């Protein structure tokens, strides 16, 4: 950053803080007391929210003030949420290349965020997670239960103005232990969410405002809660999709649910965030991530290169980088006993790997583990002596029992 710009920024910060003096406890208490009075008008709404009939929901196509569109695909096994984003056609060829700076379109400049997506085209596919952990959409928490019998995903949308919208889905294969009839879906859904939720789409229809306790036994939607939430659950062609919200107006939520609709794979790929890596770009991105990285004998990058998973650039970098790290852990495991020199040497330089170079200053568990391996001081993040089994567990490598973090 140029020195004059840095100086201006520093001066700006100082001026802003001068105009925003510290907040005192007394001020907070006074404000709280004053604010309570006018909110008596909304408290009854919170405790006795008018439910919207499903027939009303389906008639809603657009929210009153904003354009929110929630789309889901089951037939094509693609879920997508979003509207108003720039087309991927606008992408420059190198936009997803490591180190490139994508043009700042879509996510932040879209009228109302963009999308949350998860692709599950085939249960034989590995989990694929789109994860944009900025302020826009992100998808996280893809869970495989057993032998890929169940895949779940969460599309999490956070917009400072709108609030939060969470789309959960649960997809089962033929091996799903519970037949996917209407009754079992409803039971599974209630169990999953721990709240009174509703299945519609050929099943009982309504929109609920759940109160009481959630699955952890915590009170939810109490009158004093600033965050109130809606939940609706849909069944569609073998998928269970739940939509939940925090801080979203009822009208917006209803419109979002009503706007859910199938999209094609092509559409899905067109609306994923611009900084996510499409299958066609994967090999190039993975090759860049592994450039100059010491690879153990027999390491095969092809599964990562040819994967159809759509992930953020960071996600693909991590996928490639962790694959190499875990391959080195496997080398250690195969050798047994002390860390082989080639493993220690390879992992000692991890901060220079393209996949991790931008995080070299962080104190992540990854670096704690690789530093320990590289230095020969085998102490894990928990302070205990680290074995190859626990190292693999900390790194969440396949074949190792995961270690609890935190």
């Amino acid at each position: 950053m140029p020195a004059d710009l840095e100086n201006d920024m520093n001066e700006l910060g100082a001026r802003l803080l001068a105009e925003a003096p510290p907040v005192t406890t007394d001020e907070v208490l006074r404000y709280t007391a004053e604010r309570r009075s006018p909110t008596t008008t909304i408290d009854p709404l919170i405790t006795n929210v008018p439910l919207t009939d499903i027939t009303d929901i389906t008639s809603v196509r657009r929210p009153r003030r904003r354009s929110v569109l929630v789309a889901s695909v089951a037939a094509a096994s693609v879920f997508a949420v979003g509207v108003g984003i720039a087309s991927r056609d606008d992408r420059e060829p190198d936009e997803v290349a490591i180190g490139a700076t994508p043009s700042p379109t879509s996510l932040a400049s879209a009228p109302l965020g963009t999308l949350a997506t998860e692709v599950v085209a085939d249960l034989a596919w590995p989990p694929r997670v789109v994860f944009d952990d900025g302020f826009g959409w992100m998808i996280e928490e893809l869970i495989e239960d057993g032998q890929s019998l169940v895949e779940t995903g969460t599309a999490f949308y956070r917009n400072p103005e709108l609030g939060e919208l969470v789309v959960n889905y649960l997809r089962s294969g033929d091996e799903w232990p519970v037949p996917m009839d209407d009754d079992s879906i409803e039971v599974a859904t209630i169990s999953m969410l721990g709240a009174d939720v509703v299945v519609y789409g050929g099943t009982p229809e309504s929109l609920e405002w759940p109160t009481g306790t959630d699955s952890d036994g915590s009170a939810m939607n109490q009158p004093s809660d600033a965050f109130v939430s809606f939940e609706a659950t849909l069944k569609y062609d073998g998928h269970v999709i739940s939509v939940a919200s925090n801080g979203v107006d009822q009208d917006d939520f209803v419109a979002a649910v009503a706007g859910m609709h199938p999209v094609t794979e092509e559409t899905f790929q067109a609306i994923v965030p611009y900084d996510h890596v499409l299958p066609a770009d994967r090999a190039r991105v993975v090759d860049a991530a592994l450039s100059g990285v010491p690879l153990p004998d027999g390491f095969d990058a092809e599964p990562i290169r040819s994967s159809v998973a759509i992930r953020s650039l960071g996600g693909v970098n991590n996928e490639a980088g962790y694959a190499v790290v875990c391959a080195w852990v496997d080398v250690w495991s195969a050798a047994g006993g002390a860390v082989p020199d080639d493993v220690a040497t390879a992992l000692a330089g991890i901060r220079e790997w393209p996949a991790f170079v931008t995080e070299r200053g962080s104190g992540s568990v990854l670096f704690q583990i690789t530093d320990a391996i590289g230095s020969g001081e085998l102490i894990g993040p928990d302070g205990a002596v680290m074995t190859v089994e626990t190292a693999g567990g900390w790194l969440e490598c396949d074949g190792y029992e995961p270690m609890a973090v935190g």
Partner: protein
Amino acid sequence: MKRSQQNAGHDEQLAGFDEFVGRVESRLRVALVATYGAHDGRAATVDALSWAWEHWAQIQWMDNPVGYLFRVGQSATRRYVVRPIPFERYELSADELLGMSTELAEAIKRLPVQQRTVVMLVHAFGWSQRDVAATLEITPSTVKAHLDRALTRLNNDLELRDAR
């Protein structure tokens, strides 16, 4: 329970909250000021801390209360129908940036909100990227990405204007 016992419990809670405010207020206020400017950012701080006091039983045990309250400051306040504080989200008031170079102020105002927050926290308030990541509950790589994009945009904007 006797009233004196109730009062003692309240006083204890209040003391805990007062300590909490002392501990988190500065970081929360700076984060919200970086996002919304001095006036609205400070107002959001008051609002978020008010929410914290009303939910003290939950908040006091949180691992990252600043990060959570930052989100509260962003979104929870709109739940209140009657608000004493006008929020101009996404808009930094020009008045709040007066006195600075107009070019810089304008360029910062045009940044997407997340880029603005990150670049302000790092370059105007001197936070480390790691601290920004922890507070905003995003990864360091995302912070870096937002920062790179913000600086690229700022530099481009300022160069374009200089060239005119």
